[in-house]
């Protein structure tokens, strides 16, 4: 079972991606359009697939993978099944960075990519502040410092909203914060991809540490694992993943919390084996949710982040209920 989970999720990912390419307001030949786009021909199908649906699908997959992987890594590091990617403060920092674009009109030269760039910078600053405040990557210090920096960024964000220059700027900002992968181009993917690759590499390089940490940091250190450096790598990787995904797609809730939680029994609860499946399942989930958003009747668009929260919250309540039964 545990061996089959990664190939099974990969197959599901492929099916989901193809489904995502074929869902939309106009019907196009997916494979032909994709082939045309890749070979540089400018047919109508190629434009719809290549300019609209492919970036949207790839960004949904990348954002989902980033959230799933960072959730699995942080839960493993902090040995807490309720740890969440936003714990590092990076997601609030990214939101604040992007909000500043709407408010101050930063980076006008970058066009639609400006919120993404500013979000990445915001995430990086929040992360540095958090690590400086925590002093080390001890789990309770990361949680406390992350909460403190999140609160600070949240307060600054509320201030920005409070003094929004006009109702349109405020609406644009609020909609952006709700989380979406629509109307993004490939330039957003180029913003996301380097952070995704580096963040994943940092986390995956610490698989042995995550494995040893199952028995606590004393045991991990006595087994020759470098807890101090390794945990900083994991926090850094997770923050890069979540910061860049929030910077590009706004905040998409519950994926990073729930996906690792749901998959854990399928990998015999081993934290190091959870990483890749959590990334794949996160990608599938966000892409499916985005397909759901597109299938809803036209009109006022339901934002992706709203849908994942609407679906995730009952699931979370069910998890709490299940946990409660174990203790009563």
């Amino acid at each position, binding site marked *: 079972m545990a061996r089959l989970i990664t190939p099974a999720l990969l197959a599901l990912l492929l099916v989901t991606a193809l489904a995502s390419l074929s869902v939309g307001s106009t019907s196009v030949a997916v494979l032909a359009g994709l082939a045309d786009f890749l070979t540089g021909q400018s047919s109508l199908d190629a434009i719809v697939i290549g300019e609209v649906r492919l970036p949207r699908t790839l960004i949904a997959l990348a954002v989902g993978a980033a959230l799933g992987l960072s959730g699995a890594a942080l839960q493993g590091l902090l040995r807490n099944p309720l740890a969440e990617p936003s714990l590092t403060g990076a997601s609030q920092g990214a939101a604040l960075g992007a909000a500043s674009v709407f408010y101050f009109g930063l980076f006008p030269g970058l066009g639609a990519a400006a919120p993404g760039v500013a979000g990445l910078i915001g995430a990086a600053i929040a992360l540095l502040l958090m690590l400086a405040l925590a002093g080390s990557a001890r789990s309770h210090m990361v949680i406390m410092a992350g909460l403190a920096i999140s609160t600070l960024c949240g307060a600054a964000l509320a201030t920005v909203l409070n003094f929004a220059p006009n109702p349109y700027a405020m609406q644009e900002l609020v909609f952006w914060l709700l989380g979406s992968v629509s109307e993004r181009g490939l330039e957003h993917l180029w913003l996301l991809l380097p952070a995704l690759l580096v963040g994943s590499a940092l986390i995956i390089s610490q698989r042995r540490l995550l494995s040893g940490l199952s*028995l606590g940091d004393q*045991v991990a250190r006595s087994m*020759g694992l470098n807890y101090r450096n390794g945990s900083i790598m994991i926090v850094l990787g997770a923050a890069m993943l979540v910061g860049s995904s929030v910077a590009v797609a706004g905040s998409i809730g519950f994926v990073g919390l729930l996906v690792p939680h749901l998959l854990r029994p399928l990998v015999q609860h081993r*934290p190091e084996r959870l990483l890749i499946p959590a990334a794949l399942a996160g990608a599938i989930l966000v892409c499916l949710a985005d397909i759901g958003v597109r299938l809803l009747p036209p009109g006022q668009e339901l934002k992706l982040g709203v849908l994942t929260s609407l679906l995730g919250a009952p699931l979370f309540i069910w998890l709490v209920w299940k946990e409660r039964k174990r203790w009563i």
Partner: protein
Amino acid sequence: MDLIDTRHLSVGQRLVNVNLNLVAGEMLGIIGANGAGKSTLLHCLAGIQPYQGNIRLAGTPLASIAERQRAQQLGFLPQSSHSAWALSVRDVISLGRLPWGDTNAEAIAQAAAAAQVQDWLDRQIDQLSGGQQARVWLARVLAGQPRVLLADEPVASLDLFQQQNVLRLLRRYAQSGRGVMLSIHDLSLAARYCDRLCLLHEGQLLAIGTPAEVLTGQHLQQAFQVDAHIDLDSDPPIIIPR
């Protein structure tokens, strides 16, 4: 050559100028009151506590050995263990192979058999009783086949039967040409199972030697402030406060 040799080992006020050694085939018991420095001493050897002074592992300074090589030679069983996740017993024991970076099936099977946990390999660790779990944590250390096994109060929370079980297992491990260093509160058990004892008092080494040399009325009075009835000639030896 000594497996372990410490010279002027100090950690602030918690451990002051401790010199001791562990020879191959020996089981060395660390005894002393709460706060005497027993755990601190074991933590220094296990590489999780910075220290002043010198520790040599089979003649080589511990500080010059890479972390991973050190972990292959020195296995550490902490005072209390807990698994954050509902791992299977097999997976917990295989974690003992982390310093080696392999999944040596033979070493894992041997460790499981030695600790008598081979019947529960596929059960989840959180479904076992405290005594059963203690044997699994020990099997995890045994799977790494360390030359020196460091155990911090391995029998503290066990019933009489399990205490005997674990101490006999550690003794067999030491007699196979390796070394075992354990901290222990029960002085009767210490006298019965350890080849030598090391008595710590307020971070200092009060006495080291055979149980008869260390477990004297005067030493126990000084270290524990109790007047003890000591009968090392009876089988098993008896040390109880009057």
